[in-house]
């Protein structure tokens, strides 16, 4: 029971972090049709900016400053990069972000070096929130969840209750009509891109010190975030939310399952000898495959239901 509850909490906090990353990506994706390869790089920049600004002004101002900085960079990327490439089609846009991710990583190497930086959890949050049976639950994890949920609420209200939110929603589905009504659609695009980047930056601020802030952190989460977005369905925030939680739970819980095909076969009285060429394959346990599981899930989803869990269109 203790294990189950702890794992549930862990999966929840991981899932919520994934959602913070993927919400921005899915917004950008659905609006501009661009799968932003550099999205995870913005996450990384968020962590590094928070580290750097945190050195000067402390964690709490950095929590706001860093996403703003990342958002500004996102706006610049959209205005001077993507918009130039837009006329060459989606492949060029996608490859532009692909190359950008490459360059951002090298620039991070250049400025902060290749070793991890010492970006720490603020002392105010470095205590045990509660103890579940015997396992301590760190306060920072609770804080992460709080920020994610707060962001989810803000995003939801912002998109459904504000004027600009309605314009964004309309631009998603009817860009021409919105343009005709006198709204500046390219500016809306820029805003969405900046907003998405800022969300990723925020995830970086709170994820960077919970895990490790280092130049490989973008690559490490990059493809998982894609999985979430594709799995949840393009352009669907609800889908991304559900997908984040599912994938968080899947990755966390499958770690606990030490069963392999061998055990299953043994149940049916089949014993594979150690010399058999397939022994290696059958003896892989579910927990070993845990981190690969999301990709399998994504491939299956794309084959069965290409628009994803809650998506409305294919691409």
């Amino acid at each position, binding site marked *: 029971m203790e294990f189950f509850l702890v794992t549930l909490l862990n999966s929840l906090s991981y899932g919520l972090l994934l959602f913070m990353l993927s919400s921005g990506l899915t917004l950008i994706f659905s609006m501009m049709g661009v799968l932003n390869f550099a999205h995870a790089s913005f996450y990384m920049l968020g962590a590094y900016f928070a580290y750097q600004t945190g050195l000067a002004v402390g964690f709490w101002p950095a929590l706001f400053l860093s996403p703003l900085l990342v958002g500004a960079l996102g706006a610049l990327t959209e205005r001077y990069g993507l918009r130039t490439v837009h006329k060459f089609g*989606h492949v060029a846009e996608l490859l*532009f972000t692909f190359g950008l991710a490459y360059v951002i990583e090298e620039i991070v190497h*250049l*400025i902060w070096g290749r070793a991890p930086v010492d970006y720490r959890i603020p002392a105010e949050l470095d205590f045990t929130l509660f103890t579940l049976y015997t396992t301590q639950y760190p306060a920072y994890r609770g804080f992460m969840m709080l920020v994610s949920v707060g962001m989810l609420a803000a995003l939801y209200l912002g998109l459904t209750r504000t004027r600009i939110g309605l314009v964004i929603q309309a631009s998603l589905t009817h860009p021409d009509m919105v343009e005709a009504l006198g709204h500046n659609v390219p500016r809306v695009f820029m805003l969405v891109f900046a907003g998405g980047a800022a969300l990723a930056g925020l995830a970086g601020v709170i994820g960077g010190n919970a895990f490790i802030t280092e130049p490989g952190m973008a690559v490490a989460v990059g493809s998982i975030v894609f999985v979430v977005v594709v799995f949840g369905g393009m352009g669907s925030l609800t889908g991304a939310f559900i997908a984040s939680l599912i994938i968080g739970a899947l990755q966390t819980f499958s770690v606990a399952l030490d069963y392999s095909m061998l055990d299953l076969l043994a149940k049916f009285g089949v014993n594979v000898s150690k010399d058999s060429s397939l022994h290696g*394959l059958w003896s892989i346990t579910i927990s070993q495959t845990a981190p690969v599981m999301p990709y399998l899930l994504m491939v299956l989803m794309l*084959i069965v239901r290409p628009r994803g869990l809650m998506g409305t269109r294919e*691409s």
Partner: protein
Amino acid sequence: MSTIITKGRIIFWAAAVLFFALLPFVFTQSFALSMLSQMGIAIIFALSYNMLLGQTGLLSFGHAVYFGLGAFFCAHALNLVGAGKFWFPVTFMPLVGGLAGMFFGLVLGFVTTRRAGTPFAMISLGIAEMVAASALMFTGFFGGEGGIATDRTVGGRLMGISYGPQIQVYYLIAGWCLVCIIGMFAITQTPLGRMANAVRDNPERARFVGYNPTRVRWLMMTLAGFFAGVGGGLAAINYEIVTAETLGVMASGNVVLMAFIGGIGHFWGPIIGAVLVTLLQSALSNYTQAWLLYFGLFFLVIIMFSPGGIANLITLHKPVRQAGRFKRLVPAYSLSGGAGLVMLLGFFGLIEMIYHFETSEAANKAFSFFGLILDPSRAAYWVGTLVVLAAGIAMFYGATRVVKRAWDDITTELQVKGMV
């Protein structure tokens, strides 16, 4: 068929054969030879990738899977020959890799090619991640961290060819490279190749005229898998070791860069890309640590300003050349070239200064930059580099206007004459 085998083409390919044969006499060093071999392999790989991206419109982020699996199968086949299990000439060993690549293209392609566009890109990425992860898990077949080592001389000496010396391996690679280029070029001329273009441009219409787009993509995928596998087999013979990195996501990303930098709109674009990228990666990394940054920026510049790649830049000038007006572009180009050189000098200097400032030991940070000694621990050098960079940018900006004017003049002239 008579339209395919023309006199011009025969002359062209004969010249290509001669070119490949004579290259080693120009570059005699053994390192140069291994680089040429590497280029040959990269050319096959990049061209096979372009069968997907350029010709069928499938953006794959997992093409190295077929290349890598081909390499592993070829390495195992070589080892089996070495162990005396069966006999097969080393010369045709890349075929084993090709067949393996084709098999996996057939199997995995069945899954992936049911979608096009972004979903295809994502599925290919997912499969690449899965294969890369399993390559590290199954140490039996993939050899774990050490990979599979092999020996290319297992075939013994056949007509004086043992494949021990690099020069013989070079000729093997060059031969296969030519065969593959011709093969892939021939495919573009077949109805299948034409249909692939149709599927790329408009799958609905292709379906309307009676072709199943999924089937066409699948076929192209299988064929691309074959050629990638041949490339992988040659890599196994060339390096005599195959490791999990060969089929990794990095390798898949690399071939995207090669094809795109070269130009996906032309059959021969990826050849330029493969040669250039191999050259950059091998040569540039000897001179600077920052080569990845330069490489990434170069890629971004290509995408932003010449999305058709280098091949497109060349074809743009074709009408001008034919009209004999190229001479008039020379002054403008040399002007902007000179300005660009100043700009690049300033830019490289700046980046190198930052790198040396970050990574060098504190005692002595000075380093040699094109024969100049730069010392990042002193402010004067920073100011100097920035001035050069700023001047370069200003000059280059001015020069681009001159180029644009010259270019516009010529285009209007040609338009008046009806040549464009």
